[in-house]
């Protein structure tokens, strides 16, 4: 697959990307996966459920730690990336592509504009790493 839209990031390190077909993909950033290390388990959001921005929608567990996934904007889950059940390491290998977590509908796409774009997110990471 190829997620080809622009990526927007939340401070809690999730990304969301709008694609040509108006679907939104969500996942966790490359920085987040590298901080977690080897991912071994993903607990997914509920398909069909509506989540508010900031709601906990799942968990990503690595060998050493567990981290929560939050909704970067208010959204409704359409489907989850069930490939991660057998291949959770896709999150480490292709966090912006085959390692996406779920597909969603976003009712108010202006929410996405309130997130950080790629450059802003990179500066954000640099600032928290110092």
């Amino acid at each position, binding site marked *: 697959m190829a997620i080809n839209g622009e990526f927007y990031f939340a401070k809690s390190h999730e990304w969301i990307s709008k694609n040509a077909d108006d679907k939104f993909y969500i996942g966790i950033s490359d920085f987040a996966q590298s901080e977690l*290390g080897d991912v071994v388990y993903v607990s997914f959001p509920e398909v069909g459920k509506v989540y508010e921005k900031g709601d906990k929608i799942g968990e990503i567990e690595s060998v050493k730690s567990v981290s929560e996934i939050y909704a970067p904007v208010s959204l409704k889950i359409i489907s989850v990336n069930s490939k991660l059940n057998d291949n959770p390491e896709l999150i480490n290998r292709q966090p912006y592509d085959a390692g996406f977590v779920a597909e969603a509908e976003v009712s108010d796409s202006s929410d996405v504009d309130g997130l950080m774009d790629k450059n802003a997110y990179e500066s954000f990471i640099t600032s928290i790493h110092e």
Partner: protein
Amino acid sequence: MDARVNKRTPLYSEHVKAGAKIVSFAGFFMPLYYKSIIEEHLNVRNDSGIFDISHMGEIIIKGRDASSFVDYVFTADVSKIKDGEIIYSLILNEKGGIIDDVTVFKFSDSDYMAVVNAANTPKDFSWMHYQQIEFQKAGNNVTVENISETVGLLSVQGPKSRDLIYSLASDAVDIGKCGLFDFKFGAKPVKELKHFEFSCAVFKDINVEALISRSGYTGEFGFEIFVSAEKTVVLWNYLLKNSRLSNLIPIGLGARDTLRFEAALPLYGHELDETINPYDAGLEKYLSTTKNFIGKEALSDIKNKEKRLIFFKLSGKQIPRHLQRILDKNLKPIGCIASGTYSPSNKFPIGSAYLSDTDIDPLFLKDFFIDIRGNFEKAEVVVPPFHRNFKRS
């Protein structure tokens, strides 16, 4: 992380250069992994890996009465081993609780070295120093010295580690000084060392002498190398420069933990602490029956185990973590997780736990659950080691 209290091993900059994820552990900045815990783990099981374990403590015990001292402070029959041999032992408090688990190296009847857990080095040294004063008051000749800051410690582990070490480590020609250490016994050739024996190795290309032991914490064939702090970087880089001899890669503390846990080797702070006695932990074979030692009297009053250590695997994918609860089939709490991790060799979660009810026979413990953040995950008792059926690739 608090930079004011964390120490750095001599290899800190090498780890940073190699892109390691650095964490605070036992008062040190240490590499958790370089690239991937799972890949590093499997590299050790299949080929080899090198660990910086310079954070561990080394305490020298010297003097005419060193043998009586080590026999009193440590639970195992330490003085009975031969010069050039190593023994695993516990240090107990007067109540029989475990202060630390250690290995003790014997150079002679008057010269020993205890290798202790990093987090416990100050505590162990204070304890031993106090015992030294008591010994001296009684007219004995013994001194203890904490030399941890002068020693770098590398561990080279894995089935192919011998290919690397046997090619690069020459034997010392003269008996006597070996880097930081004095050998008064005839050191064995490196290739003849058996498990829990040590000798002197000379790395000729870089002109470094080091104490080398056949020991480790992975369940694999391997070596531990004690070298002066100043020469640690040179030796580390030299071994890695020759990585092709054994497909050697650097391994972080993450894989050190998964490797030791698959081999069911205890970790202080998880399987062991001062509230746990050696019977609880299943370590009674390290208690001497022929001599007195600190804690022995208290242990003789312990008729029944207070807790029982079990090992288990999970059918689900969530990882059990330290201190989570174990529930029986009626969801009644029956114990607490000691260690929990993912087993890279088996590709499923594994753990150990202390059952608070010692009437439960682990062999008949069926249908029990781990409370992982409110999910009750089904578990099954396993007799370790966990990597027994691992097929090397």
